């Protein structure tokens, strides 16, 4: 069986890549993608800890991950809605150009 640390390292890598995407890419949608990756990495951690934890029967980690998936869906819907609304206003998805706080 693969050890816990391997899963955690993969999760850390995905998290770091997601973070790098949010920090370096200029497109707002890609930044959202980065955030999704970070959330996913967290989910992997949750499930890995659940599996390797002392009481997997308690389902806690898995429940966390399932709720987190549900919340991520909501987050994606709202986030992308915002990007589309912003794009309709100012015709750009470039975060560096998004310099107006109010619509």
């Amino acid at each position, binding site marked *: *069986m*693969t*050890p*816990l*640390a*391997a899963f*955690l*390292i*993969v999760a*850390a*890598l*995905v998290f*770091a*890549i997601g*973070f*790098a*995407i949010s*920090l*370096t*890419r*200029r*497109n707002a*949608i*890609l930044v959202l*993608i980065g955030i*999704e*990756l970070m959330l*996913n990495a967290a*989910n*992997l951690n949750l*499930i*890995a800890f*659940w*599996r*390797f934890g002392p009481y*997997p*029967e308690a*389902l806690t980690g*898995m*429940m966390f*991950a*399932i*709720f987190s*998936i*549900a*919340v991520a*869906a*909501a987050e994606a*819907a*709202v986030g*992308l*809605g915002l*990007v*589309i*609304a912003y*794009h309709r206003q100012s015709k750009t*998805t*470039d*975060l*560096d150009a998004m310099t107006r706080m109010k619509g």
Partner: protein
Amino acid sequence: MIFGLSIIFILTSILTVAGALAAALLKNLVHCALSLTVTFAGLALLYLQLDAQFAGFSQILVYIGAVAILVVFAILLTRGSGIPEYRNFSTSWFAGLAIAAGIFALLAWAVLKSLPTSVASAAPQVTVQQIGLALMSSYVLPLEIVAVLLTVALIGAVIVAMPESRDPKSNSTQGGAE
């Protein structure tokens, strides 16, 4: 088995990380979104290896079936298909990369130092029924809250993305909003 890792695990993690990297580096936004789905699928496979069937299938259903499609739709709706007209990376990409690398280094250091060898107990027999019962008993409050959240998010996203009405009547009542 290589370094105590199963070959399936190595393949799926390479797939996952490669997808994420591609999403980070590719120029074309749709390609980024598509490689993102590879990552999502890879993560689902990792969940399956961790005996979390339900979470894995939910992951595919939600992320590939909904989130990825949503992302793709958003890209097309914002005229982003193809390569954006501005440069892909922000001017201080270097700093961002450094921070991300730092975070990875920190996490990896902590993980490797603290958990060198921990071995899983026998696979827990988790049926969907148990998950359902847990959702309806111990986790009923979070479930309700998530339900409300999803409803609110759905309505909110629709309202946010909806074009503002050009109805002259509604303009007069909120005339002072600007």
